[in-house]
């Protein structure tokens, strides 16, 4: 796989807070790929994504977005990336249209183009009737959809989603999933973390499993089933198996050290 064909290329990434959160991670995601990052709580998923989005500085390692090094040219890299976290980053006192206008301004999207795209996005996400209401009274699901519209308005090449479906009802979740799949079919790359394994199983082309800051398994569902030695099992079974396989030696190691 040539570097130009990669939307995201992470090499030997390390980050330590009071304890190591990411330990020498290598990860490659192709352009136009839907990649799901799974892992138990505290595995380091959000830390990895925050470093890709430029919200955290890595201690070591290199992140490249569509061939642009995020350390040497952060602004150019940010132009290509959209970040949606599980806590919607929306202003209570702006309307969805005002919010999208602001984001379009930050990403230098021409006003006319932004306006058309905003109407389109709000329509897709079922937010058009609320386009001129302040976001302060919106439900979590509506806020998440506004945040997603914000992420899409500048036509990013790489969308990073951290638990985007948390708190969404079935209808909203389907709207968001449809929009994401449409983007992927248009060549946009998506890297998403989720605890809803069914979503990863249905939507992602490849799945990476993270535990204790390391990538412990990666591949299509079939490849993961093979790695775990559980052909025909669900992703949930495979995931739990892989994570427990990884945890057991470390616990045994701790015991023997003690």
């Amino acid at each position, binding site marked *: 796989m040539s570097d130009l064909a990669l939307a995201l290329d992470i090499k030997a990434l390390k980050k330590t807070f009071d304890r190591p959160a990411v330990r020498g991670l290598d990860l490659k995601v192709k352009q136009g790929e839907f990649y799901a990052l799974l892992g138990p709580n505290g595995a380091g998923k959000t830390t990895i994504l925050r470093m890709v989005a430029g919200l955290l500085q890595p201690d070591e390692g290199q992140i490249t977005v569509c061939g642009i090094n995020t350390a040497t040219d952060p602004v150019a890299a940010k132009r290509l990336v959209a970040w949606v*976290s599980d806590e919607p980053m929306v202003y209570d006192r702006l309307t969805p249209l005002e919010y999208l206008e602001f984001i379009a301004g930050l990403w230098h999207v021409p006003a006319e183009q932004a306006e058309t795209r905003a109407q389109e996005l709000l329509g897709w996400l079922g937010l058009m009737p609320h386009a001129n209401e302040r976001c302060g009274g919106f439900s979590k699901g509506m806020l998440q959809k506004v945040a997603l519209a914000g992420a899409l308005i500048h036509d990013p090449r790489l969308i990073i989603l951290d638990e985007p479906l948390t708190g969404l009802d079935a209808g909203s979740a389907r709207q968001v999933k449809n929009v994401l799949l449409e983007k992927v079919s248009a060549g946009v790359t998506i890297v998403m973390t989720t605890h809803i394994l069914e979503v990863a199983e249905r939507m992602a082309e490849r799945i990476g499993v993270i535990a204790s800051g390391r990538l412990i398994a990666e591949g299509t569902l079939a490849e993961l089933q093979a790695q775990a030695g559980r052909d025909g099992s669900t992703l949930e079974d495979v995931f739990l198996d892989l994570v427990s396989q990884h945890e057991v030696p470390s616990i045994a190691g701790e015991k023997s050290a003690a």
Partner: protein
Amino acid sequence: MSAQTASLPWFAAHEFRLQWRDLTGMLTGGSPRRATGLLIFTLLFMAGLHWIADVLIRDWATAGIAPDIGTLAQLTGSGLLFATMSLSQAMESVTRAYYTRHDLDLILSSPASARRLFAVRTGAIAVTSMLMMSLLMAPFINMLAVHDGPRWLAAYPVIAAVSIFTTALAIASTLALFRLAGARRTRVIAQILAAIVGAALIVGIQIAVIFSTGTATGIGSVLSDMFISVAPAIDSLIWIPARAAMGDPAALMLTVLFALTAFGATVAIAAPSFATLAIAATGLNEVRKPQRAAKTFASGSQAHMMRRKEWLLLIRDPWLISQSLMQLLYLLPPAALLWLNYGNTGGTLPIVIAIITMAAAQLSGGLAWLTISGEDAHDLVLTAPLTPRLMLRAKIEAVVIAIGVLTAPFIIAIAFIDLSVAITGAIGITLAASAAIFIQLMFRVRAKRSQFARRQTASRVATIVEALTSITWAGATGLAAVSPLFGLFAAIPAILILAIVWLVRRKAQHA
């Protein structure tokens, strides 16, 4: 916790624990070293205040203080000043008790009594006000007790009574607003009223004196003459709180009983409707008022879009009114002076320009906190393709332009009277506002806009430094209006303060 669950003492203990942890967390940041430092600083500060109080009242007190009209008027005037400030604070706190969610949803959804919670929360407001007033007045009360006898210690229960009474008044006014204006409008009206009440006495007196004498000088003597001329007879009931503060046991008992009765009655009336009104206040978020639809998306640079966003959020911030209106109200006396002295280049312009500079600096500090520290979508802005420097510059420009728009009418009016004073004022306001913004940058934190009202308690050092620089720049600007050389000399302490802040904060950030 031994008290029966959800009883009044149980709620009180829960509330005390939360407030205590909140306070100690804010003041010490969990560091025992910082706590010790803070304790030493507080003790030294209080000792200093006691020394100042001693210098101010020694001669008066050692001669023996009799309860004559002059003394009673002076005590009542001071009490009234503190009562208005306490009422203003209580009105804001009571409004918050209804509108701020935090744990309210949890408690209101539990089988615990909302009435008890209301009684405890309003009681806590009274206690907080009582402690703040006691802390401010303690040096004077203690020194009066030292020089004129322990009877002056009766002023402490009077302070408690005033705090309890003003809290009762705040509850009654909030309740009345809910009835008259509805849940949607009460929050904004209560904040405006709180600001007006807080500033009314000082601003009102200043304006009254300015209009009767045409000058702002000698307010003290004009006031005492006015007071004595309209003061009621010595046996009037108006003097009861003042007599109580001087140790009259009957007056003291009457004052305390009156306050407790007023508080008890107000809580008894307001508590049953607390849950309903608080829920009505919650419901506000569910009613989404449509905004006027923008015809087309605005186009402009990233900086322009950032400034535009900041202005929109500032205009729509419901708590900004209470935090800034008082500073704007303090601009009324200089406006009155300008009005009266229009065409007269007498000695009032330096005072006017100094007050405007002070207000501009204070306002800049608040707006800078909102735009720099109170960024609600911090991560969003950080992931945008613009450099942190550009983002920060746009935010600062938003504040500077807002201050410029607010102060420009004054400067233009002064320019018609005296162009050089106007230029000096414009320079002074720019420097003072820049200094306030610089302090906010040095002490910036990552916070929510809704925490705006607590910014002063979150960093006492920042608040003190901000106040000090506002005063020094205001003084320097006023003096510069008289003589540029005086102004330059007076600006030296202001610059020194900023240099010290820069050195200390740079060291702290590198540590």
